[in-house]
């Protein structure tokens, strides 16, 4: 179609637009005004509980943090100053770090196989990865507990190790899915070029493949870490007497949540947001690199 052709078409549509029935005009008004206003309200609605959480971390509350009592920095100056809180936070971070490393390694390997290789049993593999994601958390927790109960001496009594096993399990699928999405359209010719230039598999992997998949690996690890540090349901079934940060929150909600919980919640939130912004900035910078740019094709 020529340029004039396009122009006349648009002109005709404009004429049709300016008239229109009441409903058409209503629809256009909705598109122009109502939708942006709705999006603004929805984003505010999503942010509201987080803002409440942050605001109440500055509350001058004594025992229970349910009513605004006035501004105070006390909790921020002593974020772990509650009995049991330090151990819980320490456990959560330990488990999240270990679960992230293990599940990222296992998941990246599966992701590479799925994207880059042709093999028998692909359907079964996809199913086995999809199943844990499509099982409610409570079922994952209870079924692992029944396994642990039947292995006394090995996996019972419960503890850090049983929580870790559970977290790695539910993380693997999310890592695979993230990696798969990022690896689609992987530039195989760059690896072939490296091999043609005399690099062996090992060198090719570390010098070509790994730098290319690194942003995807980082995204997957970030997701695994945030799923793990926040998990309450599966952890409640696999922890026994071992406290984690979410278990501490749940346990103290009847007596009243200490302000320190909001402080740590705010710190975790700010850290996660910081990491996401950082990785976005890094991947944006990498896009300027011609080699990186081919990954997106």
């Amino acid at each position, binding site marked *: 179609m020529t340029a004039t052709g396009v122009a006349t078409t648009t002109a005709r*549509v404009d004429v049709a637009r300016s008239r229109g029935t009441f409903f*058409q005009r209503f*629809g256009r008004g909705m598109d122009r005004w109502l*939708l*942006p206003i*709705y*999006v603004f309200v929805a984003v505010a609605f*999503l942010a*509201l*509980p*987080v803002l*409440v959480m942050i605001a*109440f971390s500055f509350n001058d509350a004594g025992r229970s943090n*349910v009513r605004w009592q006035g501004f105070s920095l006390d909790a921020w100056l002593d974020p772990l100053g509650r009995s049991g809180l330090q151990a819980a936070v320490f456990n959560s971070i330990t488990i999240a770090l270990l679960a992230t490393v293990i599940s990222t390694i*296992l998941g990246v*390997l*599966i992701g*590479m*196989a799925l994207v880059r*290789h042709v*093999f028998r049993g692909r359907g079964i*593999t*996809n*199913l*086995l*990865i*999809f*199943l*844990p*994601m499509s*099982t*409610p*958390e*409570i*079922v994952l927790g*209870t*079924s*692992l*507990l*029944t*396994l642990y*109960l*039947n292995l006394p001496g090995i996996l019972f009594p419960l503890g850090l190790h049983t929580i870790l096993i559970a977290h*790695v399990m539910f993380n*693997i699928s999310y890592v*695979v899915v993230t990696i*798969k999405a990022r690896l689609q359209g992987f530039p195989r010719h760059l690896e072939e070029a490296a091999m043609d230039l005399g690099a062996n*598999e090992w060198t090719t992997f570390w010098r070509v493949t790994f730098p290319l998949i690194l942003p995807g690996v980082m995204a997957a690890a970030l997701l695994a870490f945030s799923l793990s540090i926040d998990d*309450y*349901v599966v952890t*409640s*079934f696999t922890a026994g007497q071992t406290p984690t940060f979410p278990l501490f*929150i*749940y346990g103290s*909600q009847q007596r009243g949540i200490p302000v320190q919980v*909001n402080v740590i*919640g705010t710190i*975790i939130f700010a850290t*996660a947001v910081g990491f*996401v912004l950082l990785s976005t900035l890094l991947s944006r910078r990498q896009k300027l690199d011609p080699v990186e740019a081919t990954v997106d094709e």
Partner: protein
Amino acid sequence: MSGLLRRHPTAIAYALLAPGLLYLLVFYLVPTVQMFLVSLWTGNLQDGYSLTFNFSIYPQALSHYWDQFVRSIVYGGAATILTFMLGFPLAYFIAFRGGRYKNVLLFLVIAPFFTSFLLRTLSWKLILADDGLVLAPLKSLGIVPDGFRVLATPVAVIAGITYNFLPFMTLPLYVALEKIPPSLLEAAEDLYASNWQRFRRVTLPLALPGVIAGSLLTFIPAVGDYVNAELLGSPQSQMIGNVIQARFLQVGDYPTGSALSFILMAAILVGVLIYARIVGTEELLGGASA
């Protein structure tokens, strides 16, 4: 070693898959079988349990906790529909009107979910409380009567679930909508489709994969959720998750808890497998990758 791998390219694939799949086999599939076996136990916590293949526990558990099952499906279903109604306009705006603010908007949708699930839900408890941020001003203005409450009602539970799972709906919808070429929408307009016709005949059918993925990702965790019912509801709004949690962690009635958990999983898996048959496993994972 590398020679062997080069001659058998599929061997590399299996070597990459083995550790992870083995892990899922041992800590996902085996526990599921184990849970089924535990559901067939009889006995009690004091004297011990033994495997007696007591299949009658299934009809018993189902009839005894029928209300909670129905409630879970109703609450989960209502929350799924609500997340769709709230999430679709959001995803639509970001995909078609976001422009250079697309990533900022996506970030704003996801960011709240970097806060602890429990803290978010507890914040809603503060917001919806009888004399909280929302109801206190409405009551002092006389808009709602003094005795009116949201907390400890099914409305609060459904609202909490809707809030907590909104991104699981919005993101797959966004991914599906983003893939629609604007030229198709322009073509519909050029052919004199009204806004409604364009939406009904072009946008919605093309967004269907996102709708299905989003509904699954929302409905499945919503049906099994018990944290919202526990924190925002009352004993009259208990879901099946609350019962399973109490059977396991408070009563120590492992057989009934396992049976209920197994029924919940089986019901969901049957649905998902039918779906996998229709759309294929590859699409299932592709849709979930949102």
